[in-house]
Each structure stands twice: as C-alpha cells, then as structure tokens.
C-alpha cells in the first residue's frame, strides 16, 4: 500500500500574499500586449474608419 504522506500546507495567509515577481512578470508582459492590442487598436480605429472614403473603388 502506498503510504499517504500529508505535506502540511503553509498557512493560507502566507499563500495569499502576492509574490511580487516570478510568473507575475509573464502576466505583466501578457497584459501589456493585451492592452496594446485591444484598447490601443480601438483608440486608433478612427484611422480605420477615416480610411473608408479615399479608398473607395
């Protein structure tokens, strides 16, 4: 039989503390790009709308 080893979990308050780094930096890079390619594009989309008239035909 496999003996079940119970590893004691650190107190929840310790885990809830933000690590201030680690994989968080990957998330920072991800959100940077998300902001750039959602709101960044929406902010300049007037250019896309203004593009209509001169390029007709």
């Amino acid at each position, binding site marked *: 039989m496999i003996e079940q080893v119970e590893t004691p979990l650190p107190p929840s308050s310790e885990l809830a503390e933000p690590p201030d780094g680690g994989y968080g930096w990957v998330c920072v890079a*991800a959100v940077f790009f998300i902001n750039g390619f959602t709101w*960044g594009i929406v902010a300049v989309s007037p250019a*896309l709308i203004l593009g209509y008239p001169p390029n007709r035909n």
Partner: protein
Amino acid sequence: LVIRPIVTDFRLKSFGVFLSYYLDSNYFPGGTSFDYALVGGLNFTASMLMAPVATATVRQYHMKYTLFAGVLCMSGGFITASFASQIWQLFLSQGVLVGMGCGLIYVPSLPIISQWFGKKRSLVNGITSAGAGVGGLGMSFAIQAMISRLGISWALRIVGIITFAVNLPATMALKNRDGYIHPNRKVFDLTLFLRYDVFLLLSWAFIMMFGYIALTYSLSDYGRSIGLSSARASYQTAFMNLGIAVGRPLAGLLSDRFGRIEIPCICTFATGFLCFALWIPAKTFGVLTFFSILGGSMLGIFWPVSICIFLIYGLYELTLS
C-alpha cells in the same frame, strides 16, 4: 447674444467640413459623420456592457474560455467589417463585435496583476497600462501605411489577424492565483450604486467619457479641417497615444503619492482647460501636435475601462489597487 453666433459659426464650419467630406465620398450609402462616430462609441459601450457577462462566465466556467471568446469576437469583428457594404453592418462588426471582444478580453485580465503584485503594484500597473499607448502609437502608423498601400478592406483583415496572433498567446499565458486567494466576484453589486460617493464617481466617469470620445475621435478630423494633409492629420492620433503611453504610468504613480481623487481632479480640469486654451486656437501642425501630446498625457488619467473597474470591483477594491 455675442457668444452665440461665434459658437454656432465655429460649430457649423468644422462640422461642415466633416460632413461634406464623408458625404462626398459616400462609401456607405447614407452614412453620415454621426454614423462614423457612432462606430467608435459602440466600441466603448459594447465593451462596458460585456463587463458583467465576462465576470459571470469567468466565475461559472474558466477564465480561458471567456478570454478565447473575446479574442475570437475582436478579430472576427475586424475581419467581418472588411466585408461590410452597409453602415449597419459596420455598426455590428467594427462597432459591437470588436467592443464585445475588448470587454471579454480586458475584464478577466484586469485583476490578475493585482493578484501577483503587492508592493510593486503601482509600477506594474503603470507598465501594463502604457501598453495601450505604445500599441496605439505603433498601430496608427501601421494602419495608415496599410490603408494607403492595400486599401481599407485588407487593412481591416490584417488588423484582425494581428490582434488574433498577439492576443491569443498573451491571454493563454495569463494565470490567476484563484487557488490561493478567493476573490469575491460579484456580477453587479447594486447596493454600491446607492452610495453617494460611488454615484459621484460614476457620474464623473460617465461625463468624462463624452470628452474622451470627442477628443480621440475628432482630433484627426480637426487636423484635416484646418488644412493639414491627411497623413499629418492622422499623425495626431498617434501623437495622442504617445502622450497616453507616457502620461498613464505617470498619472498612476502620482495618484498613489498625492491622492487618487486629487490627481484625477487636476488632470480632468487641465484637459478641459487645454481644449479651450490650445485646441481651439490651434491652426498649425506644430500647435496641434503640442496639444495632442499634452492632452494625451493628461487624458491618461482617465481610462475608459475605469468604469468597468468601478462597476465590477467596487470602490473598496479600487482603493486597494
């Protein structure tokens, strides 16, 4: 009596330029300048209306599904817009669908940074929010080049493909820390609306929104109306994004230090003041560029999605983050 003729004269003059410009071209039959502006307004409205939907689906299923749906909506919106031939089709595609996508992507990714960073939160939020300015700056030049070389349809398709290629890996890389912390996700906390301070905050955001949209959507139009070439006029949007890229992180840091009500107050007033002091007298490329950069950096304090934050996370969470 004295002011009224001047105001109406100014408005009619500038409005006439836009209107004749759009109507002459007549790309979309019956499309007016108001219709074109409405497409931009729909982006913001649809994204805000998606906030409760995004919060509910994240809680019910997994964050990844909501994000993926958002990526599909946004890219799909641009690609379907390239096939639009009627103005209402443009409303639904480039207006509603793109806006929905934006909301579905942005809202779930919003609280993640605060889960990972505590002490460095202001700095990190500044870095991520500068992304919008940097992205806008780069894309406004890219979009101009695409439109002039490939035409509007292919520019829209390429933008759709680019947003998919960037947003898909970026959203899939996100990890929340829900296993460790148990955030209290309320779809809509209606009791919050009854609070006087929340009501005031929302009113500020809502009213400020008019100014924000008016500024972002008419800056390049205005450039054209004072006789700038269309390339130079469209650079104004790029310059404004440059201002946002610098001003937004700065505004965050200043707000942390000097107060989250005081700094937005000053910036709001300064933006309004600049419109009268610089924008109205601006008749040359140089002055208008100066206004765009300065106005953009002041405008950084107001982020359209801050309304989403108020709605979803409430005032308490807002003071924390």
